[in-house]
């Protein structure tokens, strides 16, 4: 018996040693390294707390970017939608793949250092990990499922949030799992697509999957990074009896759906606040959800104390939103003429500027593509246009469609030009909203009879990279593409902007003029969050490509640019640098 146990132990050790290489000389990531990243590194999902998506590296410039060439590429898991936001720390890329897979790669060569694969990679004590699935593998690449956008690095661990509503810590040296904490029941529909951020030593994470009626609402949590212990939990829905609880008519809590927190937030060490935004209410249309009120805290920015989860202030962009016009996306923090501001753009294509210290409204710029409502530039008040509030069973023609002009593809900011670079997709829709069942397990977004139509001002294009001046909101330049601009934007101090489209193009633009200085074709749609970093004195630009990606990448191209085709697989990352 004793011998048998020893045999098992030896076998376990051998497997671990074989499967897992190591990150040699790993330097733990301090709070300060996250707040003030080394120029070479990309340690937060948008590199810095302010979500600029900006690299200060200057080796690749407007003058030499035309010489970029492939340094390496790496095939990622094809078992789910690919929307990766890789991290780089000390020359190692930590790459989130679909279905919870994380890989550590040598960022100069693409060589694998370790892989964390839920259900296969063991815990640090050798015991098995939970398979992060619970859902069939073959179909996991569906819309929104299997997606793992961002991860976080802090101390000596990598943190992720899973498709089965868990937060996971993995040893950054070995890829072995250190802890896993489930925050909600995935059988109720809860899951994560966005990972945590780290603020003041706390892991802050927002959950999604709140479209169906259930006991429980969406929430943002704070966890202890060392132990996985939950420190606080803040609901994203105002419940009866709470402040704002009367904004859902008299709906009981189980019918207050939506307000999903499915995009990672930002942090400001000056204000000491985490900024996390929320999605629209569910069902989408007021007439369907049976509530006429503002539905707090849907479609809002929430300013949270990362130590306690206390809601310090909120700003609701679209009170009582009623067309699936999500405002959940990235919160870009910029100081404008001394005013600490938060910039946000949602599906409607309205650029909002609010004071991030107080939550006070500053200004709104409607880029002029939507036909649903009017927004007062200086008060932020919205007024729905006549006939545009959906009634059950009555068709309306709306721009954008429920796909939105803006989506999870994050905009980037350049402090050199003081311009925001915004990935846009043009689309409109003839929409007829219909009923759902008002029972537990029912609800959802509500059915829509939908006909996708081209946008009248698009000139037949679906894509646009839009450069907006942050002060005036005026268009500095725009680059239109037949297919959607399908990635986040990346800015660099070399005077460059990088983005890619659904039709497999990757572009390097002159940030000032919008001139295309370099382009390449990729195996499938450019998709995810491009980054830039430096290893061994060489600057690299990494572009994820792949499938999934929701309606911008599936339904819209299918219906509106049917002559274009791309492979429905091919998740991978492609890394470029200047020649030797």
């Amino acid at each position, binding site marked *: 018996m004793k011998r048998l146990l020893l045999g098992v132990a030896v076998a376990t050790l051998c497997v671990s040693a074989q499967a897992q290489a190591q990150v040699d000389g790993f330097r733990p990531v301090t709070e300060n390294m996250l707040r003030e990243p080394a120029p070479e590194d990309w340690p937060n999902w948008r590199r810095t707390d302010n979500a600029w998506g900006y690299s200060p590296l200057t080796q690749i410039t407007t003058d030499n970017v035309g010489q970029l060439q492939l340094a390496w590429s790496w095939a990622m898991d094809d078992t789910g939608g690919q929307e990766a936001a890789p991290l780089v720390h000390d020359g190692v890329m930590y790459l989130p793949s679909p279905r919870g897979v994380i890989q550590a790669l040598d960022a100069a060569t693409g060589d694998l250092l370790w892989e964390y694969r839920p259900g296969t990679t063991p815990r640090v004590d050798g015991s098995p990990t939970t398979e992060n699935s619970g859902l069939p593998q073959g*179909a996991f690449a569906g819309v929104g499922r299997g997606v793992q956008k961002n991860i976080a690095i802090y101390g000596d661990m990598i943190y992720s949030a899973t498709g089965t509503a868990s937060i996971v810590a993995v040893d950054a040296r070995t890829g072995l799992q250190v802890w896993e904490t489930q925050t909600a029941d995935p059988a109720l529909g809860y899951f994560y697509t966005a990972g945590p951020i780290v603020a003041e030593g706390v892991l802050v994470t927002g959950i999604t999957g709140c479209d169906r009626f259930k006991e429980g609402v969406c929430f943002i949590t704070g966890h202890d990074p060392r132990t996985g212990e939950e420190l606080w939990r803040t609901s994203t829905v105002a419940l009866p009896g709470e402040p704002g609880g009367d904004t859902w008519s008299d709906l009981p809590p189980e019918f207050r759906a939506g307000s999903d927190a499915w995009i990672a937030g930002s942090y400001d060490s000056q204000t000491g606040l985490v900024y996390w935004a929320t999605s629209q209410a569910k069902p989408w249309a007021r007439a369907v959800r049976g509530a006429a009120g503002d539905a707090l805290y849907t479609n809002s920015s929430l300013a949270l104390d990362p130590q306690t989860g206390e809601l310090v202030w909120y700003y609701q962009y679209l009170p009582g939103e009623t067309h699936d016009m999500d405002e959940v996306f990235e919160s870009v923090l910029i100081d404008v003429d001394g005013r600490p501001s938060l910039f946000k753009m949602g599906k409607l294509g309205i650029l909002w500027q609010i004071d991030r210290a107080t939550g006070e409204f500053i200004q709104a710029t409607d880029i002029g593509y939507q036909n649903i409502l009017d927004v007062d530039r200086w008060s932020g008040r919205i007024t729905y246009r006549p006939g545009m509030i959906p009634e059950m069973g009555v068709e309306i023609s709306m721009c954008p469609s429920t796909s939105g002009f803006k989506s999870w593809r994050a905009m980037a900011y350049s402090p050199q030009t003081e311009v925001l670079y915004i990935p846009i997709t043009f689309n409109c829709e003839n929409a007829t909203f219909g009923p759902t*069942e008002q029972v537990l397990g029912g609800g*959802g977004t509500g059915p829509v009879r939908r006909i996708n139509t081209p946008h009248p001002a698009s000139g037949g294009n679906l894509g646009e990279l839009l450069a907006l001046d942050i002060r005036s909101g005026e268009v500095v330049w725009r680059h239109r593409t037949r297919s959607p601009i399908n990635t986040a934007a990346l800015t660099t101090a070399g005077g460059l902007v990088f983005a890619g489209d659904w039709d497999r193009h990757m572009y390097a633009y002159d940030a000032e003029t919008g001139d295309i200085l370099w382009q390449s074709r990729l195996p499938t749609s450019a998709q995810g969050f491009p980054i830039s970093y430096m290893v061994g004195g060489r600057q690299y630009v990494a572009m994820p490509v792949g499938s999934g990606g929701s309606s911008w990448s599936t339904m819209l191209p299918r219906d509106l640019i049917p002559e274009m085709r791309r492979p429905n697989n091919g998740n991978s990352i492609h890394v470029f640098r200047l020649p030797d």
Partner: protein
Amino acid sequence: MRTRLRRVTLSLLLSATACGGASAPEVTSPGPAAAPDASFSVWDGVYAAAQAGRGVAQYAEACSSCHAEDLRGNSNAPSLVGVSFLFVWEGRSLEELFTTIRTRMPTNAPNSLPVSSYLDIVAYILERNGYPAGSSEMEADPAVLSRIAIIAREGGA
């Protein structure tokens, strides 16, 4: 009596069909219901129980990750049962439902399953919506499927 006669006729029609499903035309996005030239409805026993039974596993494998095990859908995937399903599909033909599913689903790999799997899945969806099974298996014949209307209540329109 009338219903029973229709069922018999449908069985004959189903058993006599040739499989022409592969050449079914592309459809556009689900739009306003267009009344098909329907002779039958989904209440006439248009699939076999065994077919719906096979559809359970096919659905679990190919559909449930988005449309959920209970077919009620998720944020980006519409419900395939009940009032929400009927809101989109009432008055349209089974041919349109079948072709839409076959040419668009799964989203990441449209038209990637055998035709028989798509039929099994459609049968399972019909079963979960409470439409009765019949004696013959549903086949991928546009001429037949286009004559079967999706309607809310037996005898209703």
